[in-house]
């Protein structure tokens, strides 16, 4: 499974995607770093593996996730998609567990498992009854060091990934356009390469390259374990020490922190991809991330996205869809949970008979309105209320909760960053929103894409 960044997918979560967790009545753990008011507990094993425990005692289940500090940015030159294809290969057997048997074992124990890859990280997870946690740890610890790949298995799985690319990208004009726009936006930075990889490059990966990738990136000292669910920090610590603590640390190549490439001009792309029925207008901007931006910047960008284009009361929707009737839909999104730069986007779908020029002019006018003056009190407070409430709603989904902490730690944030998020949203001022709009919604940092219908 691959997480594909997509305008509409990003939009559906209305800006921020990670939130902390506050529950009543948990007891302070005997060990581990948990400051007062924190829900999650963090500690480290002697082999360098980080561990985070999030208690959720509503149901007798756990979410067990193992995150590695490796992703699409670590694909060797000319071998885009290597991290993602390698994620698939992690299911192809070890010295003691035959190919495919890990998932079957999880299922036989009443659990569900899968994995996903982004530019910044790769994560493997199981959701299962809490008494099966030791077994899950054994299986993950085993494939962290004992993977045993055959040439035939690598080639068959490569075919599976090529089918995955056909399904997710080649069959979907919007995915194809998105991929080209991100390539244009990030220029030669690895964020410009699709995580799933280009067809021609995926096709060349072989067993030797896979094993090299494994040895370069997979070790406990490059991993973060997240356990959320009906467990205590003490029992997770004991189990993690027993199952993972025995895996030896290894010296890995240091992970490059690839600098941003300067952009001196906007880019414009005109698409006429066969199979496109619906014309669409997209604009992406590079923008600071939670990991890289100055404190408060990403929070203000989340607020900016909510006010500019988060739902039907937003400026873009009210102006382009309701008042001017130029578009059938319109909105904005911000993806800030990256190790490198973040991404801000606006989009609109022209109504029949409306030209791209007319629509883009109107869209630009609304985007500029965010730089001309601070937001008004009503829209500002509604956006804040909505974002802060997400923090509570997010507690309802254990997998999401585990995911939020894992993602944050994988891009260099701390559990305090996760749990303090609603307070930092509350601290955003109207002037901050205007300032980030002025600073970051600039042409030089943007790519505009127009998708023309083509049968």
């Amino acid at each position, binding site marked *: 499974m691959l997480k594909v960044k997509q305008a509409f997918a990003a939009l559906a979560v209305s800006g921020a995607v990670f939130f902390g967790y506050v529950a009543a009545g948990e007891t302070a753990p005997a060990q581990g770093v948990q400051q007062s008011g924190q829900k999650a507990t963090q500690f480290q094993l002697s082999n360098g593996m980080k561990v985070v425990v999030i208690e959720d005692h509503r149901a007798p289940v756990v979410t067990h996730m193992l995150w590695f500090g490796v992703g699409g940015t670590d694909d060797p030159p000319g071998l885009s998609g290597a991290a993602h294809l390698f994620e698939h290969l992690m299911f192809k057997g070890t010295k003691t567990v035959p190919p495919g048997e890990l998932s079957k074992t999880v299922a036989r124990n009443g659990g569900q498992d899968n994995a996903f890859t982004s530019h910044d990280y790769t994560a493997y997870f199981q959701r299962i009854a809490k008494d099966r946690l030791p077994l899950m740890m054994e299986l993950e610890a085993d494939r962290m060091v004992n993977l045993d790949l055959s040439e035939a298995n690598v080639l068959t799985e490569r075919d599976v990934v090529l*089918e995955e690319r056909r399904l997710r990208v080649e069959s*979907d004009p919007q995915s194809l356009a998105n991929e080209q726009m991100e390539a244009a936006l990030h220029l030669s930075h690895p964020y410009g390469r699709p995580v799933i990889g280009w067809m021609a490059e995926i096709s060349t990966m072989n067993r030797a390259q896979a094993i090299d990738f494994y040895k370069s990136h997979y070790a406990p000292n490059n991993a973060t374990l997240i356990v959320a669910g009906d467990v205590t920090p003490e029992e997770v610590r004991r189990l993690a020490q027993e199952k993972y603590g025995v895996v030896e640390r290894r010296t890995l190549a240091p992970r490059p922190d690839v600098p941003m490439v300067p952009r001196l001009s906007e880019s414009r792309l005109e698409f006429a991809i066969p199979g496109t029925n619906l014309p669409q207008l997209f604009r992406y901007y590079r923008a600071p991330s939670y990991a890289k931006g100055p404190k408060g910047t990403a929070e203000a960008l989340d607020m900016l996205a909510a006010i500019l284009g988060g739902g039907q009361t937003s400026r873009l929707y009210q102006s382009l869809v309701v008042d001017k009737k130029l578009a059938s839909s319109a909105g904005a999104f911000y993806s800030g949970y990256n190790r490198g730069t973040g991404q801000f986007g606006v989009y609109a779908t022209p109504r029949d008979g409306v030209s791209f020029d007319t629509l883009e002019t109107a869209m630009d006018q609304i985007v500029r309105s965010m730089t001309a003056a601070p937001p008004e009190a009503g829209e500002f407070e509604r956006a804040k209320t909505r974002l802060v409430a997400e923090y509570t709603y997010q507690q309802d989904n254990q997998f999401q909760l585990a995911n939020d902490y894992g993602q944050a730690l994988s891009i260099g944030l701390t559990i305090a960053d996760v749990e303090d998020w609603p307070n930092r949203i509350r601290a955003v001022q109207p002037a901050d929103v205007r300032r980030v709009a002025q600073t970051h919604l600039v042409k030089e940092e943007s790519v505009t894409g127009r998708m023309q219908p083509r049968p």
Partner: protein
Amino acid sequence: MKLRPALLALLIGVSIPATADAITVKAVQSPSGVETWLSEEHSIPMIAVNIAFPAGSAYDPSDKPGLATLVSSLLDEGAGDMPSEAFKQALESRAIRLGASADRDYITVTMTTLKDNADEAFRLLGLVLTRPRFDSEAVERMRVAILASLKQEDEQPSTVASKSWFATYFGTHPYARSDSGTPSGVQAITIDDIKTFAADHIVRDRVKMSVAGDIDDAQLRRYLQQLFVSLPTKTVAVVPRPADAGRPASNVIPRNEPAPVAMFGFAGPMRLDADFMPTFVANYILGGGGFSSRLMDELRDKRGLTYGISTYLADYKSSSLIVGSVQSEKGKILTAIDVTKSELARFARDGATAKELADAKTYLTGSYPLGLDSNAKIARTMNAYQRQGLTPDYVEKRNALIEGVTLAQVNAMAKKWYDPSKLVIVIAGTPDAAAASATGKQGNTAK
């Protein structure tokens, strides 16, 4: 099922996952007689609500497919004295999430609120049900949005295959129509059509409501009064069962697709029939079990023919199906279908093994709590059970029903339902037949 299963598993050395301390579901007496189920969970200050009305696309007029979907899209577009924008602002200022969608049988309204805002949330929900506005501004805006999404749906081979499959399988029955409608149908709908549909279907008959979260019986009963008491008591006719659906067919929709999508399926047992549970277990073994299913093994793991293949039971109020889909490169899609057919034939002929059944049972019973670990999932699942005609204690009985399925039953169901000669198959995308014969040879030798 409270045998301390973890300990038991250790003793006898086999995998029997812990069963959930089942959530408690109770029926709440409603002054309006509306069937309401409640699952209380007080650790997070939020409430999730699902309400289903018998108002699905099966009730669309034959010349106006898309009416139910348009009505559902308008339910959060203004109510009472508040036009769309004012109503949306009222929701947002309290972070209340409210929406509605239509499927073939029902319109489902969902609402999520923080506990502190529950009074206002249920007041707004009551306005949606009893005083929706259907302003012409909102109607035209939603009509345009639906027409745009219909265009986009036709970009995807998976939706094209699915729409055509239902049309082929159901013929003249109302389930043949896509619940998202057609461009000409959506164009033809008038405001009168919308108001009549709402008046006939947003009524007290057969409404199912489920609530999960930080709320108790007494508080909920206060809200029920304002939600339903003023709704009309009209009855809504049940959609007739299809008379001659499911004639075997194999169609190709010619399109230039790099990877065509095939949808395939046939009739399945009705939800409340005795055949349903054993067939549900059988289906897990064949195609429902994700990475563990036979079809996934044969097509993905052994042959690299696809990223994924699955089959599932689709139960409607008046019909039931076993359907699946697979996507593969145009030179391989015919091979993928051939392998699928031969696996169906083998399953019908030889059935499952005792080990496969045991594995299916440990997964299906052990994973059951994973689907009930959040208020949103509990509300959604309870609402589905209500629509299926089950009782509130089903949550407690369900795992025992799975455990009770025998190998003889599974094999009888495999034989009865999984007959490849009965398949209705629709492929969206033109297969490359020449490449298929070459790949077929390769596929046979691959391990």
